[in-house]
């Protein structure tokens, strides 16, 4: 028993599909509705009600599988997973146990490793149970029946950072593909973790499942804690018990959950009320076509084809809306303007979405179109406006929606490069600041910055700074 400890991690991720309705009934799939408002005979388990599969849920599930390079089965079936709990009044969850709709595929990590997917299956979500009410539990069944896919990995992960990266990339793919908003605060994405440790020269250790992980940060913290707990126990000669544990965020620790059913206890059997789910070649074609270029590919394109930094590529692809906006602006711009466009997108436009004084809280809601941004950057590139003036133009376009060219004309912001006009501003600046003027004449090259700044202010940002510098050095008879 001399080998180092090795950690083996597998993840099961539940993702709510972005449908309008539940998986098997027409109740709204809507977060935040009043308790039990979105319920009917079917999702409250009334006798005689019959399920019917939501076509869009099937389509989005297929799209998710294709985006993750999984194989989609032409025919998959549903099963009943029997358990008695207040969050699912039917007494069973309709899921896919024997024949899931997708298998294989995976997610590539930056360290070159590949996290393989075992399977992806469709199932219905359970309701929400609120336990902090003394001896009673309150139940809201709005979530009961909301469509989910469960994405199960092989035990290919070996540390908390890999788990964090896997989840981050998984979420990116699903959000980009329009499958789900993956908003963990709303419970649209939830994750269970299986962790075991063993000596590298010994068989796999006993697996512990951790539930109640509602943020990627908690996933990372729970794994780190659990690995430490297990290795400490094994070092002390204590056996690991196969169990399900909850992560307690406040205590930053895991603790034993209620004893859970064994797999056999679920008494899975084929769902008699649902026919198989069939996926045709046409559905595959349509859903494959609906998948946009995914973020990993976009980052590679930005770095390799446009020469953007890894950081810029990361900021641009963090949200699909940002990347889509940038790509649309790029199509309307000179190819050489990519870096400038990226700067304006990540600095000015993303800041504008957070500005309460600017109409629109997302890039696609702003009054600046991608073509407007391309036009603005072209004005800067051609030297027609200075970057300070460009910010003024952008602010005005954000406010009014008027085209940048029009704003430049109306506000008289075209860059002034006429030496005669600039000379007048320079004379005024020299007269107003004899101290800086003396310093420049005495050979303090840095002092000229104060005079250039004064000219820029007098010209309201219109003066071409290079021409200003040239005029000032000539007037003060110093070297440029």
């Amino acid at each position, binding site marked *: 028993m001399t080998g180092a400890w090795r950690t083996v991690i597998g993840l099961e991720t539940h993702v709510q599909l972005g449908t309008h*309705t539940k998986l098997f009934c027409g109740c709204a799939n809507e977060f935040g509705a009043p308790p*039990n408002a979105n319920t009917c005979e079917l999702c409250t388990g009334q006798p005689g009600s019959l399920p019917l*599969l939501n076509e869009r849920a099937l389509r989005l599930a297929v799209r998710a599988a294709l985006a993750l390079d999984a194989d989609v089965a032409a025919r998959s079936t549903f099963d009943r997973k029997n358990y008695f709990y207040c969050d699912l009044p039917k007494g069973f969850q309709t899921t896919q146990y024997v024949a899931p709709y997708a298998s294989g595929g995976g997610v590539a990590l930056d360290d070159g490793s590949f996290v393989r997917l075992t399977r992806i299956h469709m199932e219905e979500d359970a309701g929400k149970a609120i336990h902090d009410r003394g001896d009673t539990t309150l139940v809201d069944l709005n979530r009961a029946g909301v469509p989910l896919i469960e994405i199960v990995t092989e035990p290919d992960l070996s540390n908390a950072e890999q788990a964090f990266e896997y989840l981050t990339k998984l979420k990116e793919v699903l959000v980009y593909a329009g499958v789900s908003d993956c908003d963990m605060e709303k419970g649209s994405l939830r994750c269970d973790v299986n962790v075991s440790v063993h000596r590298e020269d010994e068989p796999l250790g006993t697996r512990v499942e951790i539930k109640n992980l509602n943020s990627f940060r908690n996933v990372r913290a729970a794994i780190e804690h659990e690995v430490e707990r297990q290795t400490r126990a094994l070092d002390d000669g204590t056996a690991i018990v196969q169990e399900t544990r909850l992560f307690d965020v406040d205590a930053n620790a895991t603790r034993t959950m209620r004893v859970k059913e064994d797999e056999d206890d679920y008494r899975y059997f084929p769902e008699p009320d649902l026919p198989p789910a069939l996926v045709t070649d046409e559905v595959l074609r349509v859903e494959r076509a609906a998948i946009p270029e995914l973020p990993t590919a976009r980052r590679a394109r930005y770095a390799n084809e446009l020469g953007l930094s890894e950081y810029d590529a990361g900021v641009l692809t963090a949200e699909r809306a940002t990347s889509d906006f940038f790509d649309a602006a790029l199509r309307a711009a000179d190819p050489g303007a990519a870096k400038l466009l990226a700067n304006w997108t990540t600095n000015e436009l993303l800041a504008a979405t957070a500005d309460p004084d600017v109409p629109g809280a997302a890039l696609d809601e702003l009054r600046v179109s991608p073509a407007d941004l391309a036009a603005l950057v072209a004005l800067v590139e051609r030297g027609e406006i200075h970057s300070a003036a460009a910010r003024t133009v952008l602010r005005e376009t954000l406010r009014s929606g008027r085209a940048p060219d029009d704003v430049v004309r109306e506000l008289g912001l075209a860059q002034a490069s006429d030496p005669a006009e600039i000379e007048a501003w320079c004379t005024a600046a020299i007269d107003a600041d004899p101290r800086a003027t003396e310093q420049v004449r005495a050979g303090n090259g840095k002092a000229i910055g104060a005079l250039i700044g004064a000219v820029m202010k007098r010209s309201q940002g219109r003066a071409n700074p290079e021409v200003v510098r040239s005029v000032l050095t000539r007037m003060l008879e110093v070297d440029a």
Partner: protein
Amino acid sequence: MGSSDAPSDPGEGAAHTLVRRTAALARLDLDEAEIERLAPEFRRILDAFGALAGVAADAPPATDEPHNARTRPDTPRPSLGAERVLRCAPEREGAYYSVPKTVGGDA
């Protein structure tokens, strides 16, 4: 008490074990007299399914598989709403169902 304790062809003792396990999963608090009464019934049910399994082994494959399984459009339909569904609830608190707390208990 795991399901591995319950063999697929239980004798009377195993039938008692199965009744206890099933009751625990369903959060039913059965007394010994009820277990005594239910065990033979469980035994008869399992025997009946055992007989069915023997028949099913020779059964021809299903031929009524649909070629175009029906799905429904993702269009919302009116729900019953909280007031109507909660009429069936033995207890409620506001717009919630109120049930005995089960979290933390052994299944």
